[in-house]
């Protein structure tokens, strides 16, 4: 028994079991190699403990902030909250039955077929280098798009027009299985018209992959980052945007997806029409999400849960016109957007400042320094320029 205790009282071991990270995986794999005599103990214990990882229930973001608001209200009036007698006890007796049903339900849980794989994304090009927006053709040709707000479109004959230059592509590359990649580094954005007439606005720090032409009743593209889509109507062939964890399926509509790999969640905002959101590793009980205009679905990458709420669409799509509008947003989130937009770093003198909630609008078409100054003024603090790339909010 002693050998089990050694690990049970080791927080590094418990963390590995209940909230594993890549580092912990590596640490313990190395540890097992060094202590082969403990291998069986460690594996057995991990399996057994993992069996007891329970299902945890959390409040969603808006429930949390409502509760906090209520608490702060009663603090300010300094009165104990009026105690409302509710019918909790009615629900109590059903709780046990519900738990039973839950257990039965999940035991028959089976996995649906996975979405078929796409060729892996090429991550070789750095997003934060000061390079230009790049268009990579099926034959590997890289075309530099020098403007910070570039435009790519197609002619009826299939030639690509980049800004004002026409690029003639060979007919053999105009095949659905020939993929084109558009890489928009930090500090740039791009507007792309696809061969089907759909328009995609790509935000800073995004990768977008699409086929040279759409065929076979399907229009599939792949996105890493943020984009606003204005999809041309074609009831015969659905338009599917794949991100790392979610896929969004539409027929003809306007919507925004923000799926940056480093963000905590994937956000889909619908402006017009309707969309269907599908988890890539769908389980039997995962329902697809349907949005109506004005709604936003946030998918939490960690918990795998969706929250759907009504939002002000402008807050999420005005970036394509160079305007950043936000409502009750943490300064941290705004700063992150600005960092991507301008390809700079913004630090905080006091980390607490980052948690301040603000509402407002920034016109990013004016020069960067005055945008940052505007933001600092709103915060009634100062922003200090350390060097070309680094700023600090005091």
């Amino acid at each position, binding site marked *: 028994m002693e050998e089990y205790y050694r690990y049970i009282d080791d927080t590094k071991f418990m963390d590995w079991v209940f909230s594993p990270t890549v580092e912990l995986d590596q640490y313990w794999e190395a540890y097992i190699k060094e202590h082969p005599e403990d291998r069986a103990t460690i594996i057995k214990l991990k399996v057994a403990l993992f069996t007891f990882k329970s299902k945890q229930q959390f409040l969603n973001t808006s429930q949390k902030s409502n509760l906090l608001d209520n608490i702060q209200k009663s603090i300010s009036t300094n009165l104990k909250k009026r105690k409302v007698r509710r019918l909790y006890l009615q629900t109590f007796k059903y709780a046990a039955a519900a738990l039973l049903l839950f257990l039965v339900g999940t035991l028959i849980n089976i996995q649906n077929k996975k979405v078929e794989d796409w060729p892996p994304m090429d991550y070789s090009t750095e997003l934060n280098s000061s390079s230009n927006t790049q268009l990579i053709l099926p034959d590997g040709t890289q075309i530099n798009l020098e403007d910070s707000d570039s435009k790519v479109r197609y002619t009826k004959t299939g030639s690509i027009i980049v800004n004002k230059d026409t690029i003639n592509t060979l007919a053999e590359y105009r095949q659905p299985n020939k993929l084109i990649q558009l890489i928009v580094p930090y500090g740039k954005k791009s507007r792309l018209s696809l061969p089907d007439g759909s328009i995609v606005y790509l935000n800073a720090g995004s990768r977008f992959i699409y086929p040279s032409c759409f065929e076979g009743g399907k229009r599939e593209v792949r996105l890493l980052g943020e984009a606003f889509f204005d999809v041309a109507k074609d009831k015969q062939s659905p338009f599917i945007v794949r991100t790392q964890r979610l896929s969004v399926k539409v027929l003809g509509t306007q919507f925004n997806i923000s799926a940056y790999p480093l963000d905590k969640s994937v956000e889909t905002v619908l402006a017009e029409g309707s969309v269907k959101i599908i988890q890539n590793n769908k389980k039997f009980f995962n329902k697809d999400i349907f949005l109506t205009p004005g709604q936003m679905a946030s998918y939490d990458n960690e918990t795998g849960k969706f929250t759907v709420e009504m939002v002000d669409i402008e807050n999420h799509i005005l970036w394509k016109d160079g305007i950043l509008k936000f409502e009750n947003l943490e300064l941290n989130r705004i700063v992150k957007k600005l960092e991507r937009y301008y390809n700079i770093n913004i630090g905080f003198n006091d980390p*607490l400042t980052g948690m301040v909630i603000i509402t407002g609008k920034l016109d990013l078409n004016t020069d960067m320094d005055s945008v940052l100054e505007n933001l600092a003024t709103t915060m009634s603090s100062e922003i200090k320029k350390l060097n070309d790339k680094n700023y600090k909010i005091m």
Partner: protein
Amino acid sequence: MELQSEIIDHEKFWKEFTEGSQLAFTILYNHHIDQLFAYGIKLFGNDELVKDCIHEVFLDLHLHRETISYPRNLKSYLFKALKSTIFRRLKRERKYATLPNDDILIFDLEYSIEDKIIAEEVTKEQKQIVETILRKLNKDQREIIFLKFESGFDYDEIAEIIGINRDSVYKQVYRILKKLRDILEKESMVLFFIYSLLNGAKKKIKKDKKVVQILGVEFPIG
């Protein structure tokens, strides 16, 4: 481009909190709310009641902030406060409805192992193991499992939250481990199989030989 995670100075933070900073209060709330709510739901599975009780706990925390030390005891203080608030509330409400007299707090652990074994169909044996383990634990043991294994409390803190002494907690953990070991000895092959499913990518089943390979060791199955 990711914001560097900044380390907050605990003492400075606590000072700001005791001086009544709203920002510090918000941070503290955000830091603990998920774990508190998850714990509360396990004590008594009613969202509204748990939310109400959390409300009361934070209000009390604000009112008594000057007498609480930070940071060592804060988390267990909050857990304990939530538990006693829920308990008090239920006791009072019991006057108005029929409830089983003992065990007001049931401590439900909804196990998520079923969710994890989605890669393959759940076999009869695996189902049995989970049920066996569930049956063999009592309410206190379930709570100790949650507090010790999942919430990272030490023996002293658990003793305080549950209201028994440290030695009893230690003995209970010993008993839980013993039960686990018994199951492990008997069913280890099947458990290894579960483990391999949990680890998805590491699993390699050679069809002709029927073995599972885990961390370089092969175990026969079937």
